[in-house]
């Protein structure tokens, strides 16, 4: 006999299954918030209150935690539609239903994730208005028109999400499917604008421009087009794809570990592969976007750049290197495990290349993690012959770091290509030539990247930054855009010698996927702290000084403890969202299993669309 669900459970289901309920909830929150906004507007003008503290935890810490959770959730909410839409497009083009089902199930997550994100956004707004009224009044004065646009975009996004989610089954064939794909595209377009508008507020704080007289719209527009706005937009867009992919991978990893049937193992193994693939797909161009952002920061204000890279935040970049290094290693490790466990017989064939790639990655990571200057005592500095270590100091500079990061991207790309080609034999007549061209492109690019890196030591910084580093980046991009289509063409006519076997990965593959997701989340928290701390004691850099008791930037250890706590909380919230979103499916699954309804869906795992075998059953 089934137990009746409790009130909380019913509420959770209501939110999970009905975006309308979510919208009503958010709207109620907005109505409740209205008086607070009014009070804050009053206090911003006449009242002398600039700050209010929160006892115990402190207003800054509270804002930090809530803002971080909101941003991570927002990244997830904006990343998942990209991920889902890409999967839907792949499913539509290839005719493989499992991609479509994967996309649908991840879209299902959006409703509950959307409400949670909005909830944290609302809480953040209340806290900011209460704790930082003067700053909020200043920002509202400049950005009020964009607040309105932001609200309008939310309405459009919600309406599109309704149609996208509720219309999935109704628009599954023919022209209506194309319309559904257009809806998915629009969902991402609105989501993109929802992301870039708050970005303008945050980037204005870091790189403000002087605002001349003019209409409210003209002033808001001028403030929006600040020097770091687009670099941050692009960086966040790519990072959201990475986050969405790796979280999908982590979810699959956990479900894989607890899978009980071979079908479940097959399915979650495949889902983990898709998640990791999309994560890596985004990860490869991410360092380029980061480089562009840092370049713009230097160009905007050299002092800010120095604070980040050479000042009190310089050790942060060593931690960043460690996290990115682990992420690259984790992603490659997962690929390598895929080659050796999913493609029987390939273990021996690929052992040597894998070993070579592992050594290159570790060496590159070692160089990337080398600090430029070491904090040393006077005696230590004398023994060392200066603050820079005679040997390690050489690896600590940007020229070396740019070189190794490009090499790591190349190696990861080659891991992916190797995985793609494993178990297949070329049959095209021009295969030899294509392989020779690809090999030559890769080797020459690798050599030129290293040569430019070494040459970079002997030219002025401006030459290195403007020409050498950009050339390295362009070279790596060239390798990708040359080898990817060539490989795709080769594989079109290739003969499959060994079928890929799903569900045979060892348990450590699941943990590798979880590790990758944790690294991405930690990286986002770390760089959020970096961006915020680069403003040092300014709310708006050089314009509005932070004169609160929290105007200092805490040391890295304290900050890292908060980042770890935020990461853990975010993981728990995401786990909750997944649990809520799949609650109904589980109930249906167990119910269907008992009644043997035989509709085909009863056999599906709780999440997403089953495996290839299941596809055939449907």
């Amino acid at each position, binding site marked *: 006999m089934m137990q009746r669900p409790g009130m909380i459970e019913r509420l959770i289901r209501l939110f999970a299954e009905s975006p309308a309920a979510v919208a009503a909830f958010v709207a109620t929150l907005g109505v409740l918030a209205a008086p607070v906004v009014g009070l804050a507007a009053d206090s911003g003008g006449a009242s002398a209150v600039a700050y209010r503290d929160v006892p115990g935890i402190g207003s800054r810490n509270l804002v930090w935690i809530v803002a971080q959770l909101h941003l991570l959730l927002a990244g997830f909410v904006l990343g998942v539609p990209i991920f889902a839409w890409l999967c839907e497009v792949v499913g539509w083009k290839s005719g493989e239903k499992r991609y479509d089902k994967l996309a649908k199930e991840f879209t299902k997550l959006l409703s509950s994730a959307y409400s949670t994100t909005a909830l944290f956004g609302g809480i953040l707004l209340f806290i900011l208005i209460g704790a930082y009224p003067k700053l909020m009044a200043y920002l509202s004065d400049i950005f009020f028109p964009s607040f309105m646009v932001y609200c309008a975009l939310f309405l459009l996004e919600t309406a599109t999400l309704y149609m996208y989610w509720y219309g999935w089954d109704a628009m599954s064939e023919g022209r209506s499917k194309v319309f559904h794909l257009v809806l998915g595209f629009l969902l991402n377009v609105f989501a993109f604008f929802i992301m870039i508008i708050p970005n303008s507020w945050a980037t204005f704080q870091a790189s403000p421009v002087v605002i001349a007289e003019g209409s409210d719209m003209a002033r808001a527009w001028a403030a929006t087009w600040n020097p770091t706005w687009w670099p941050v937009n692009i960086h966040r867009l790519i990072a959201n794809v990475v986050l969405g992919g790796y979280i999908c991978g982590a979810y699959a990893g956990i479900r894989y570990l*607890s899978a009980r049937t071979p079908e479940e193992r097959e399915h979650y193994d495949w889902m983990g592969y898709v998640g990791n693939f999309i994560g890596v797909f985004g990860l490869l161009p991410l360092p380029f976007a980061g480089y562009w952002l840092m370049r713009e920061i230097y160009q905007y204000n050299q002092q800010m750049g120095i604070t980040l890279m050479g000042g009190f935040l310089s050790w942060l970049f060593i931690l960043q290197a460690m996290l990115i290094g682990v992420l690259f290693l984790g992603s490659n490790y997962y690929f390598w495990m895929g080659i050796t466990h999913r493609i029987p017989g390939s273990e021996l064939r690929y052992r040597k290349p894998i070993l070579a790639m592992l050594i290159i990655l570790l060496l590159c990571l070692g160089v990337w993690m080398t600090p430029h200057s070491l904090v040393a005592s006077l005696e230590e500095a004398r023994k060392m012959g200066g603050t820079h270590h005679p040997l390690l100091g050489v690896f600590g500079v940007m020229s070396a770091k740019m070189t190794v990061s490009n090499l790591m991207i190349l190696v990861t790309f080659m891991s992916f290509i190797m995985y793609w080609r494993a178990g297949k034999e070329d049959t095209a007549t021009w295969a030899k030539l294509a392989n020779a061209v690809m090999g030559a492109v890769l080797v020459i690019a690798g050599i030129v990247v290293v040569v430019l890196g070494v040459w970079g030591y002997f030219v002025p910084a401006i030459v290195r930054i403007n020409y050498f580093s950009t050339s390295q980046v362009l070279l790596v991009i060239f390798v990708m855009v040359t080898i990817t289509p060539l490989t795709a063409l080769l594989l079109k006519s290739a003969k499959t010698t060994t079928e890929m076997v799903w569900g045979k990965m060892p348990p450590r593959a699941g943990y590798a996927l979880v590790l990758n997701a944790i690294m991405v989340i930690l990286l986002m928290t770390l760089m959020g702290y970096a961006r915020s701390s680069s403003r040092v004691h300014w709310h708006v850099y050089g314009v509005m000084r932070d004169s609160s008791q929290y105007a200092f930037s805490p040391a890295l250890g304290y900050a890292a403890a908060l980042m770890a706590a935020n990461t853990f909380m975010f993981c728990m919230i995401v786990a909750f969202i997944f649990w809520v979103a799949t609650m109904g499916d589980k109930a249906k699954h167990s119910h269907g299993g008992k009644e043997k309804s035989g509709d085909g869906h009863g056999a599906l795992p709780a999440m997403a669309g089953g495996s290839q075998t299941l596809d055939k059953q449907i």
Partner: protein
Amino acid sequence: MSEVVKLQLIGLSVIGSGVLILLFIRSQFLRVIGFVAIVLGLFSLVALAVPQMASLPPAEESIDIASIKTPADMASIGQKIFFSKGQCALCHTIGPSESARCPDLKGIGAKLSREFIFESLTQPQAYIYLDYRHEGLPKEYPARMPYINKNPIGLSKNEILSVIAFLQQMSGEPISVNPSELEMPGSAPAAPVKSAQAETVTVAQAK
């Protein structure tokens, strides 16, 4: 016990809990939580192992106008305003720079009179040519330079005079602004400048 030691102990206990979970708990979800705890604990310990440097804000300076005795005092305050509240350095540089978005101000105090500088700061639209390249009334090209005496920058007359003193001193010119021109708190403004705050000149310490 220092904060770092406390945080290290917390990090170690988190790692220990994770290890215990992995050793004794069979539920896969809890085991993953244990694994995550170990990763996060290790991350915290690494971050605590590197040099701990906090960034402390410089002291805020509040300058009493009564203490300003010489034109050089004014120029010194003007320099601070130039790089902080005045936001001049957001666009202008002193000396050529690739990052300059607006004219280089090196030597500007020698090229322009104090009256012209004052007018440029408070009426930036004054000498901008009109656009006749269309039918109807000519339009104004919007000045990129903001009104310095209006919000959001809102420098007072005292502050603007101090900035002019700085620009003249920086150009090697004799400072033509005199402290006697400063408005004392409570006195009526002598020039038609909409001052935002005319009492004390509060500036953040320039970096």
